[in-house]
């Protein structure tokens, strides 16, 4: 609120407030004097403050007196139209307005922060009930040499077998950048979750990694790109993590569930206030229409 207190101390702000008050007063007096009973539009201090604040947040400086006057005029203009439109009932039967109202109700019925604060026992219970959703995937790191079946010349399978022998026969790592065909696929995949390997090399390839022993060249394994000789260099099995490791993730899903349940509950209560009458032809799907 430092910004607000700064604004409140501004002489300009006081000037504006007085202006707004005079304006409001004028509207009031004019309203009383008029032959027709006129409605009043009172521009409150808080409203002026809000108009100025939005301007300040947009442009990172307070409005000049002329700009503020412009904001107030435009607010009055909007208010006049808004009220006249309401009188004419223009808010009714407008999909846009109806849906906006619905959305506002959903906002209003969002559970409070208080309700969405979980303690460890809530979260532990939630984690226990949803173990599968939080399971940490197995991870693998591996090296791969690629053989492109589309390359003209000797068939890739034959070359793969020869290359496998060459790889097995040497400790020299330099061969990794000499053997095999060019590819954008990485020569060496750092320790990565199973799903990342699936999205880079395909499902079948990833599934095959599970059976390979560590630090031994094997293959060829097929991917959507061609053949690969593979050496798994590291492997971490999947596991069910402790709450402490994944507290934020569990809390987020717990809140989402809580939020949905809360809104459903609020809706049911609101819905219960209505008796819904349907035309004979439109049968309710699950007897909902009989709810009083």
């Amino acid at each position, binding site marked *: 609120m430092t910004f*607000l207190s700064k604004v409140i101390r501004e002489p300009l702000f006081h000037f504006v407030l007085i202006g707004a008050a005079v304006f409001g007063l004028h509207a009031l007096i004019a309203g009383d004097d008029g032959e027709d009973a006129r409605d009043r539009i009172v521009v*409150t201090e*808080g*409203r002026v*403050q*809000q108009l100025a*604040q*939005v*301007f300040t*947040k*947009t*442009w*990172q400086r307070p409005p000049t007196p002329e*700009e503020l006057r412009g*904001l107030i005029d435009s607010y009055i203009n909007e208010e006049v139209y808004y009220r006249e439109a309401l009188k004419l009932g223009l808010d009714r039967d407008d999909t*846009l307005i109806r*849906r*906006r109202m619905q*959305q*506002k*109700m959903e*906002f*209003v*019925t969002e*559970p*409070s*922060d*208080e*309700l969405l604060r979980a303690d460890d026992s809530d979260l532990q219970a939630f984690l226990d009930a949803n173990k599968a959703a939080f399971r940490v995937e197995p991870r693998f*790191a591996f090296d791969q040499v690629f053989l492109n079946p*589309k390359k003209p010349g000797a068939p890739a399978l034959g070359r793969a077998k020869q290359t496998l022998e060459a790889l097995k026969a040497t*400790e020299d*790592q*330099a061969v*990794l*950048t000499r053997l095999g*065909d*060019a*590819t*954008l696929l990485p*020569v*060496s995949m*750092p*320790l*990565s979750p199973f*799903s990342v390997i*699936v*999205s*880079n090399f*395909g499902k079948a390839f990833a599934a095959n990694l599970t059976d390979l022993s560590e630090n031994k060249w094997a293959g060829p394994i097929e*991917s*959507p*790109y*061609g053949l690969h000789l593979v050496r798994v*260099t590291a492997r971490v099995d999947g596991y069910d993590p402790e709450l402490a490791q994944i507290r934020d993730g569990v809390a*987020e899903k717990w809140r*989402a569930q809580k939020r949905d349940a*809360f809104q459903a509950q*609020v809706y049911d*209560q609101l819905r219960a206030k209505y008796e819904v009458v349907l035309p004979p032809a439109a049968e309710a799907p699950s007897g909902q229409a009989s709810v009083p």
Partner: protein
Amino acid sequence: MIRRMPASWMIPGVLALGLTVPAVAQDSGTLTEGDAAKLYPDKPVYSRYAGRDFPTRPFFGDTHLHTSFSMDAGAFGARLGPREAYRFARGEQVTASSGQPVKLSRPLDFLVVADHSDNMGFFPDLLAGKPSVLADPTGRKWYDMVQSGKGADAAIEIIVAFSHNKFPEDLMYYPGTSAYKSAWQKTIDAAEEFNEPGRFTAFIGYEWTSNTGGNNLHRNVIFRDNGDKASQVEPFTVYPPYGSDNPVDLWKWMKTYEERTGGSVLAIAHNGNLSNGLMFPIVEAFGKKLDSEYAKTRAKWERLYETTQTKGTGETHPYLSPNDEFADFEIWDKGNLDGSVAKTKDMLEFEYARSAYKNGLKLAQELGTNPYKFGLIGSSDAHTGLAAMEEDNFFGKTTPQEPSPERMLAAFVDNKETGVKIMDWEVGASGYAAVWATENTRESIWDAMQRKETYATTGPRMVVRFFGGWDFQPSDAEDRLPGHTGYSKGVPMGGDLGAAPEGKSPTFLVAALKDTIGANLDRYQIVKGWLDADGELHEKVYDVVWSGDRQPGDDGKVRSVGDTVDVANATWTNKIGAPELITVWTDPDFDPSEPAFYYGRVLEIPKPRWTAYDAKFYGTEPLPDTVMILQDRAYTSPIWYTPEG
């Protein structure tokens, strides 16, 4: 992520540079060889893999997704808000607004929820954890109800009090102050909640929706920053008194934001195909003649261009590129956004990316800066909260266009006065943004966008490399580490070639890898545009590498790859095409005195369009002329050449 580099990865005889891609955003925004050299360590290191800090994989995402917070999306019936949008993009199953379950084939790496800034609105944020609540007796009562598990009852009571002006005054503030939360703040909160550095990036952003006269000049604004900075501002709007429909004013807003908060923002111009000739002006904009200030400012803030999305693709148009047989792709050329003004041919030049690149070369000579030196991305512009842009998993542009037996039969725009009619089947299942960033964080992805190391895809997640330099050799295409070679000897997409060495022509190391679960690749093309000494602009499309043993014809063009699509069954096979394409190409027509740009275009083999999957699944009879087959594709950001002096 753990990076384990075995110590045995030593390659004798190979000198390697520890490469670093600059995270520093330069004013020119493009990476030149000179700049790159400065950022490399002085001493070459022995291991090619040490300090390997260049991007090794592209991150895929959507920079333009609307949720129910956008007034039009809400009116269309969208119920999913930013939180659900992030959850879906992260790979989880959600229930679409139309009630159907939906899930992506694979998670996206990042998402920008970009709701319209106009009419985002304020919402009462009653009781949300305010200490003053407890001091008030009514507040205390509600608090106790919440505590004792009667939260829903409390909510109802609060609503009633609110609606009857019986809400305790002490708990009440005015809109814009703390008891009202703006939709903007809620948007920021959702991004903060779902941003998970290293795994999933949830960007803060919004769409500025300049649409005067129905001409679409929208821009998406993306923050590099976290919520602490973004919440210091209100997003820029179009309607007075706070906003303006002139992009020049948006750039002022961006400048102000950066100066006051120390933050960083960039803008992505919306596909210009519905701007009716206003997206890329060459003479004047908003009644003001283009000048050097306009060119400089636009180039500084508008880093990227959305070249493909659900409302059509804007790379080029058959009228502008009559010799480009692949130009006729997902074209929307009937009018502006609301169909209020029909399109005329003379507008096309000023709303497609390729012609803007060409005109940019000319403007650079006139104004001193090329205002149209932007990179390319694709995005969805879906108004459903669902970034689902795969042909066989397409959830439409708006909620009524989510999968249904009727969705390919209705009209999307139907303006009886002008005769502009766009059918729902013309909506494209496109696209995504691919970004070559070093890691999956707001900072790293944003920096890559800022230096334009990006490409557009019309849906598939193909991996595309595009490097330009003066010294690439044919043998570089055989290298096991094309990325490494590319960064060592040239500049990546979005970069500048720099001065031409005597007697040399630009060389390009290009490579593409098909989507793991997608269609094979047909060809990799390089599109070149240049300005000759007489001030004439030219363009040419070169086939540089393609699948199979096809030979180019006399016109230099490679014939069609063929077609395996079975429309009735919505299937195709990868019997044709290639999973991977790689080559080194040298410009055969280079003239060092002519400014030029080069960008890559990668075509998949033909496959069923979303309409074919729909027809198969629902048994819907398509309307006559419905397009049922397409060749999805990728477009890279260009590499530019500017003669010295």
